[in-house]
């Protein structure tokens, strides 16, 4: 007997009736137009990543994210949501591992204006971070910077993520390993949630000062002075995912981390 349940099961797998998430499918199309066709396993990995974010009601909080799949500047530039595309400054290296900056002349410009962030911004990155010393992975600083930087300090693996630089700094505890996932979210004017590979912590800081300005965009592989537009603190890192948005809770950051690690594992670059 061929039942309805059998038909549905077959329809989602064998008969070709399975439909990828519509946003994932749109991304696959734009990747193809840029010169890269994702494999079936890559499509499944991305589909499941998006599904996890949507199921947890996190997807809508993401302003834009860059999956850095496809191995070329044209494919890595693509914003998943189609809101913004990256401009690669200084010709960084592109391959299947993601985007690697040289620490001297290169960074990625997300095109996301500082003014795009509301009162509770968050940023996240996944990748390989150079050993030793203070590394500013991504973000902005200075007067008018609403979304500040995500960094690791010293020879350890501290996430040093400051959203209220002018009013008071806050650094989170040790996260291991040094490479991998780092994120921070401004929960309120005075509280920040940090999420690393092993670290999950909420800290209190002093009140923010000033208002965000919209003049400059958010970089990764370096940080930008929002008052002057200058890009500083270049670092030699390999980025495999970059994300920014508004309103992520501590639990949301944990969801993003889990989904990101699953994605990168499936892509063979965890």
């Amino acid at each position, binding site marked *: 007997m061929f039942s309805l349940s059998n038909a549905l099961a077959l329809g989602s797998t064998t008969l070709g009736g399975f439909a990828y998430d519509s946003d994932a499918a749109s991304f696959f199309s734009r990747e193809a137009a840029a010169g890269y066709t994702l494999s079936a396993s890559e499509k499944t990995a991305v589909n499941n990543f998006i599904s996890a974010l949507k199921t947890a009601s996190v997807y809508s909080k993401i302003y834009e994210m860059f999956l850095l799949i496809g191995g070329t*500047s044209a494919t890595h530039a693509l914003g998943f949501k189609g809101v913004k595309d990256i401009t690669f400054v200084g*010709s960084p290296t592109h391959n299947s591992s993601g985007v690697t900056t040289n*620490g001297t*002349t290169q960074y990625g410009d997300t095109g996301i204006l500082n003014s795009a962030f509301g009162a509770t911004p968050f940023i996240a990155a996944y990748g390989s971070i150079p050993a030793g010393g203070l590394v500013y992975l991504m973000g902005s600083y200075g007067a008018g910077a609403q979304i500040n930087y995500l960094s690791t300090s010293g020879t350890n693996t501290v996430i040093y993520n400051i959203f209220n630089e002018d009013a008071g700094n806050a650094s989170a505890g040790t996260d291991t390993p040094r490479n991998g996932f780092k994120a921070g979210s401004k929960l309120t004017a005075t509280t920040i949630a940090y999420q690393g590979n092993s670290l999950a912590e909420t800290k209190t800081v002093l009140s923010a000062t000033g208002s965000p300005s919209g003049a400059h965009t958010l970089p990764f592989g370096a940080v930008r*002075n929002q008052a002057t537009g200058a890009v500083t603190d270049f670092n030699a890192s390999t980025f495999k995912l970059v994300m920014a948005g508004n309103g992520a809770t501590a639990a949301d950051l944990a969801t993003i981390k889990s989904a990101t690690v699953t994605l990168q594992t499936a892509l063979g670059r965890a």
Partner: protein
Amino acid sequence: MSNYIIISQAQYDAWQGKKVGVNKFNAIKTTAGSFAVDALAKNEFPSAFIGSELVKDLTVADFPILKK
């Protein structure tokens, strides 16, 4: 240590900040006073180079410290 192409002031003036597709040309003045751009730029901005530029291995120490 990475390969960099040393370009002239004229090339810098002509190309600095120019965008082709998703890529933007970016050279930085080294501590020695020359303009250096990553060697990969030759793939993305072939018209920027005349073919007789000096290629050098440089380190972070060869560049000014741009700190926040």
